[in-house]
């Protein structure tokens, strides 16, 4: 049984159809990547899994349970957590307060050890714990956003464009973190990216989304060498060769 299974998902924004019958599966322990151009429906797919907006047709199963219509808080409580696009940290609150907010639904008994784990992963956050989160650099903010999501100990972590607007060196670091999380903690990861090169390199499997439909799928390596993917998302793209 796959961890997450999307069956024929249709999502609308008013009259505009953003997803047209998408099927995606994520197995336990995988890194799965969704790539696609602007407006292909990548973010919509992640948001639909979280229940905002709701799928108008289709079914979303998480660990064998139907979460298509479940309240957002229930979905989060089941272990699905999203790092939203553009980080969306609480900028006027301190780093520590941001992390505390991430633990809203978590077990209070884990709070201290989870916090130590986050600080172990990114020591810079420990140094800046009482600083306002808005004063962090872009990369630090992204790390904070990831840590905030991890505070609730999700089993499925969904990241929406974590490399957005970051310097190439920081992008590398973020992708390494994603791989480490997956390898060391066994966190299953669903990654949405414009930076197709990096994303496909870390992915076990990947999907290419086009105009709200799955165009291609395969292992990360397969798609990296696929001529169509190369032409559309890599050659003209912004990867570092």
């Amino acid at each position, binding site marked *: 049984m796959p961890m997450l299974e999307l069956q024929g998902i249709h999502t609308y924004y008013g009259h505009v159809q953003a997803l047209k019958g998408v099927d995606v599966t994520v197995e336990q322990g995988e890194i799965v990547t969704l790539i696609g151009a602007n407006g292909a429906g990548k973010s919509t797919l992640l948001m639909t899994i979280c229940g905002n907006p709701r799928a108008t047709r289709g079914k979303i199963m998480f660990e064998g349970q139907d979460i298509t219509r479940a309240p957002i808080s229930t979905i989060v409580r089941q272990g699905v*957590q999203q790092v939203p696009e553009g980080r969306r940290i609480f900028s006027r609150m301190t780093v520590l307060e941001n992390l505390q907010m991430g633990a809203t639904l978590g077990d209070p008994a884990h709070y201290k050890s989870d916090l130590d784990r986050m600080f172990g992963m990114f020591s810079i956050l420990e140094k800046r714990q*009482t600083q306002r989160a808005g004063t962090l650099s872009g990369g630090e903010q992204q790390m904070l956003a990831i840590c*905030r999501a991890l505070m609730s100990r999700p089993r499925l972590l969904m990241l929406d464009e974590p490399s957005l607007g970051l310097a190439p060196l920081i992008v590398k670091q973020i992708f390494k973190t994603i791989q480490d999380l997956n390898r060391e903690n066994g966190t299953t990861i669903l990654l949405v990216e414009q930076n197709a090169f990096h994303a496909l390199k870390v992915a076990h499997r990947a999907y290419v989304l086009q105009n709200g439909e799955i165009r291609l799928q395969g292992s990360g390596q397969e798609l990296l060498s696929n001529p169509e993917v190369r032409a559309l998302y890599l050659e003209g793209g912004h990867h570092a060769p």
Partner: protein
Amino acid sequence: MTQGAMGMAARPAIDYAALLKDAALAAFVVFFLAFPLIGLQTYDQGGALAVRGRWDLLAYAVIIGFVGRFLFQLAMLFKPVKSTKEPSDASLARQRQIGMIIRYALLGIALTMPFLPFSDRSWLDRGINVLIYVMLGWGLNIVVGLAGLLDLGYVAFYAVGAYSYALLSLNFGLNFWVCLPLAGLFAALFGVLLGAPTLRLRGDYLAIVTLGFGEIIRVVLLNWGSLSGGPNGIASIPRMDFFGLFPFGNREGAFHTVFGIEYERTHQIIFTYFVILALALMTNWMVNRLRKLPLGRAWEALREDEIACKSLGMNPTNTKLSAFAIGAMLGGFAGSFFAAKQGFINPESFTFMESATILAIVVLGGMGSQMGVVFAAIFLVLLPEVTRDFEQSRMLLFGAAMILIMVWRPKGVISHREPTLRLNPVKGA
């Protein structure tokens, strides 16, 4: 230090031509506004209305506009460049220390005020007024400052509290101390009643709905004559007694006979003063506690980013509702105190102007800042009193002062936000 010095050194040469042009433009605007307002005066000429010019006054106004704008722009050029760096731990610790000293000094003044030699009845009344606004400001601060919900109808909850006490005490003979929690409860109930259907709205839309709600309450009170007495209001509301034990007044068994002291009319006022001081301090303590609880942090997180809150599994509607209800409850407390202190209430006391004043206190003081509210309340309540001699230009001075504060400190008098969580002690503090 180095930042300031560099700012000085890098100051550009002053472009006087541009400054003069800017000042001339300001003078023109003044002329445009002042020509009908100041320049023309109507007077009675044998039963008919005639107009005459006051050209000298108009000229003064234009000159003041020109020179004032010129000096203001010049002053802005000399304003030191503000560093965007986070203040160091040491300077934060020093600031915190100064803050503590000011806080305790103000508390000391508030506690001893009734016994100071100059404080007569009128000063006590002013003190009570300031404290009512401080309490209302702190209550609204939960909604506007912490949860970030713009509430333009806060006075509605104040009114609910006031009428609750008035009606409960007159109709059921309940004591102030019994009515106080009940009034808070009713106000909180109204907060939930208003909040439940409207808190899906955001920003401007919520502001308009709350504005409407404030007016609805006032209009209902104005027209439901059989309940609220309509525009005549409710008179002879019982004053508060000594914790329900014995009353004040010049008779046997009252406060002064129990304590064996001479009867004095000010006893009751001094007691009233301490009641509102206690209520205000309770509010302050409550808000400070709430800020450090998960609920308070959730309010602030909601103000920062609602989508992120949702993605963390929070329920934004319930969180907002709790902020609304608690803010309303505090407004209700203040309202029932107001009714007990005045002994008379009517809808005139609960107009939109009151909501605006309370909101101005929160914004001027610095959103979310407790001390800022105190300064702003003192300023906004006492300034109209102090400027009573300039009856004609009072509102003008008031407006000018508010503009100056907002130019000087756009985020309010105190914009620093104290972290609610600390793991390790701050290094160097």
